[in-house]
């Protein structure tokens, strides 16, 4: 066994924690680590890689008891984590990136740039990657960036490489290349931990799967003993039918209230049209970077339209602005709760009424008691776990913060609500409640536009889905056409061609 982690526990003030988890990885094995967001996968990986110290439990690596004092120490011992947000320096060359802090030096302790380039090129060749070591990393595709990270791991003689959702940003062809490399690493005796949400990939590449849920170990078994349904029920801990509310029936969907025509935003959105109707949940799917968030900002008016037009509740404009959108009854729950959504320093009541201050009181003076009344209603309606309207928002969990934001926009959104990754970083229980609230809002006649990277949620909740790919609308699915596979096909189809262009 390369990694033996026993009864690992870690508590945080927030939502995520680990509770007595065992985790074993053998040399030359590909182990899939699975679980919903917030299940504790990242915490476990960070403990193994020395970024967190466990509160309890023992960790053995390569036959020795270890207590890492820093990520660097774990790395020196042979643990390399390739995080989703890669640890690369865009302004540096490929060679410089591979050798950061490990640059080959000559007798005068000067960096030997020639040796660095030659060794970097040799490492990349071992990986079968055709990347110029003199190129700056900012000019590489995401797939090539991953190769640079893998080359870095090889250079430091990694015994364990952890891939944190490596395929979330790759097209189909790039995934195949990555898997070929993973198999090669495995043959060399490197242990691999592979985190992914795509179960097909898990069955293709993994030898064994370990499932976490709510910080606890659900189970670990050789992949041959598992099937898809078994894994899903292990991950979510309940049946699919209990998670998602029933979809809209034909009669519940009304007239079109949001209509985007040929929206162009910089280089990220290249002419996308869609419409959202009263009473329906419209999903916006696609890879990270496909332009989903930019499209939402453009519709709301927080990013300028380069061309195209938006029609909101019958009113057309080619210059939408947030103020005009709010006046037209459109709400927007952004992806980044802390950065763009919540006022972390204000209390709950102030957060809920922020976009509708002029309705709280007719005069210049803000009517705090009216504000609190509104907040109290929302707290009750959405079961927000908070002591009261004066509670500080910072102290709430991710799921409850999200409910505060939903409560806020429900006060002002009369026609439509755009949700960008509404369940990111919240636990399963809160997710189920958020899904219920979303459906309830649709039933009340709102048009819901939901951006999500989680395919199960797109499939489970949406009445209709548009799929973006590299800034264009790759297709639209409705009703029974919405399956994980169909969405994925549309999301990656053209990115394959694009990667072909890049390497050509």
């Amino acid at each position, binding site marked *: 066994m390369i990694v033996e982690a026993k009864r690992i526990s870690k508590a945080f003030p927030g939502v995520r924690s680990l509770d007595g988890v065992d985790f074993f990885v053998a040399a030359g094995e590909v182990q899939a680590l699975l679980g919903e967001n917030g299940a504790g996968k990242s915490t476990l990986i960070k403990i193994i890689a020395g970024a967190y110290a466990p509160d309890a439990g023992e960790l053995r690596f390569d036959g020795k008891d270890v207590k890492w004092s820093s990520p660097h120490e774990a790395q020196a011992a042979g643990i390399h984590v390739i995080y989703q947000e890669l640890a690369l320096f865009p302004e540096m060359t490929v060679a410089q990136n591979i050798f950061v*802090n490990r640059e080959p030096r000559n007798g005068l302790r*000067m960096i030997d*740039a020639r040796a660095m380039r030659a060794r*970097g090129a040799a490492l*990349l060749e071992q990986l079968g990657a*055709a990347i110029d070591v003199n190129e700056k990393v900012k000019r590489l595709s995401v797939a090539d960036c991953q190769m640079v990270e893998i080359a870095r791991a090889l250079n430091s003689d990694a015994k364990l490489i952890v891939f944190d959702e490596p395929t979330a940003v790759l097209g189909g062809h790039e995934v195949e290349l990555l898997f070929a490399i993973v198999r090669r690493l495995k043959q060399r005796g490197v242990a691999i931990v592979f985190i992914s949400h795509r179960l097909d990939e898990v069955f293709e590449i993994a030898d064994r799967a370990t499932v976490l849920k709510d910080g606890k170990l659900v189970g670990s078994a050789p992949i041959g003993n598992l099937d898809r349904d078994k894994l899903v029920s292990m991950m979510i801990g309940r049946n699919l039918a209990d998670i998602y509310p029933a979809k809209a029936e034909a009669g519940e969907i009304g007239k079109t209230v949001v209509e985007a025509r040929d929206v162009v935003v910089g280089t990220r959105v290249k002419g996308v049209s869609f419409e959202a109707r009263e009473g329906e949940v419209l999903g916006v799917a696609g890879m990270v970077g496909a332009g989903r968030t930019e499209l939402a900002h453009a519709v709301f008016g927080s990013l300028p339209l380069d061309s195209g037009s938006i029609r909101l509740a019958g009113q057309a404009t080619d210059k939408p602005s947030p103020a005009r959108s709010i006046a037209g009854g459109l709400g927007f729950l952004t992806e980044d709760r802390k950065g763009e959504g919540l006022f972390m320093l204000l209390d709950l009541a102030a957060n809920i009424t922020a976009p509708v201050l002029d309705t709280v009181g007719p005069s210049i003076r803000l009517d705090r008691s009216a504000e609190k009344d509104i907040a109290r209603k929302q707290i009750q309606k959405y079961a927000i776990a908070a002591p009261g309207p004066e509670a500080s928002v910072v102290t709430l969990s991710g799921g409850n913060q999200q409910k505060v934001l939903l409560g806020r926009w429900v006060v002002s959104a009369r026609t439509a609500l755009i949700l960008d990754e509404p369940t990111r970083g919240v636990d399963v229980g809160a997710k189920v409640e958020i899904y219920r609230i979303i459906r309830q809002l649709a039933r009340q006649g709102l048009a819901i536009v939901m951006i999500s990277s989680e395919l199960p949620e797109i499939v489970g909740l949406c009445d209709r889905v548009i799929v973006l790919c590299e800034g264009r609308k790759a297709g639209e699915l409705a009703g029974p056409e919405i399956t994980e596979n169909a969405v994925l096909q549309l999301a990656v189809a053209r990115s394959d061609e694009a990667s072909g262009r890049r390497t050509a």
Partner: protein
Amino acid sequence: MSALAGVAGPSVWRAARHIPVSLLIVTGLLVLLIVIGFAASPRFGTVNNFLNIFQQSAALGFVSLGQTIVVLTAGIDLSVGTMISLTSNFTSGWINDDPNMVIPVVAGVIALGAAIGVVNGALSHYLRVHPLIVTLGMAAILQGSTLLYSLAPVGKVPDGFENFAYGRLFGLSYGGLAMLALFALAGVFLHRTRTGAAIYAVGGDPRSARLLGVSVARTMMIAYGISGACAALAGVYLVSRMGSGDPWRGDGFDLASITPVVVGGTALSGGRGGPLGTLLGVFLISLLANILNFLDVSTFYQWIVQGLIIIVAVAIHVDKGRRT
């Protein structure tokens, strides 16, 4: 294999492809200014004038070099101006016309500058206070200390001391040559040592740098230490040029030291740029001052021009991709 092709191919063109656009821009501006200079005054195009410009760029060169290294870590040092005031005052006050004191005082003052810089870096890193605030606070501390030491120019230096500023080798001033030597040394340090690479790494992404075992604390202390030492050297140089220290000598050098850095293409966001651009930036600013002097433009207009330059330079280099 593609890398090998790169080494063996027409290397001049490959090398040219890697020259940053900012260096080309600043070189173009230099050429443009020289053309304007020739048009502005017949006295501009003389060898002697160019040698003077070279001589006069030394002080700005020293302090901008240190600023470059700090900016590469995504930091900023706003204590360089008062550091110059402090060290210039101490230099002439402590030497006080005693030739035997020259070497120990100069060495001591530069070490003091380095030490104060290290404190800047350490405070900013360990207290997690933005260097803008730390160095601004340090600037007030240094100015106060300077004025406590003396309210007016103090002390005097031996006659030979002015050689640093006015002495010449083949017509080139010692100060200017020292500046060139330091820029070359900084180039070697930044590109050929692990500490130099760490400065770029910390400026590029401190989180990633830490994950890869780079000591961010050590890197910051070294960068700010170098900046402190460079500012101290500028203080010493100005004593040599003016004949004595002055408690307000460094006034205006904070902004002035940042201008060549950003004009030379070093990104305020860190991790991109280097001393070559700054050197060209220093020449650009010195040339501009020289031409404006020939045109009899008031110093106050020169301040306005400098303010415009820094804003425009940053606006040009800022990453236009982000506009949320």
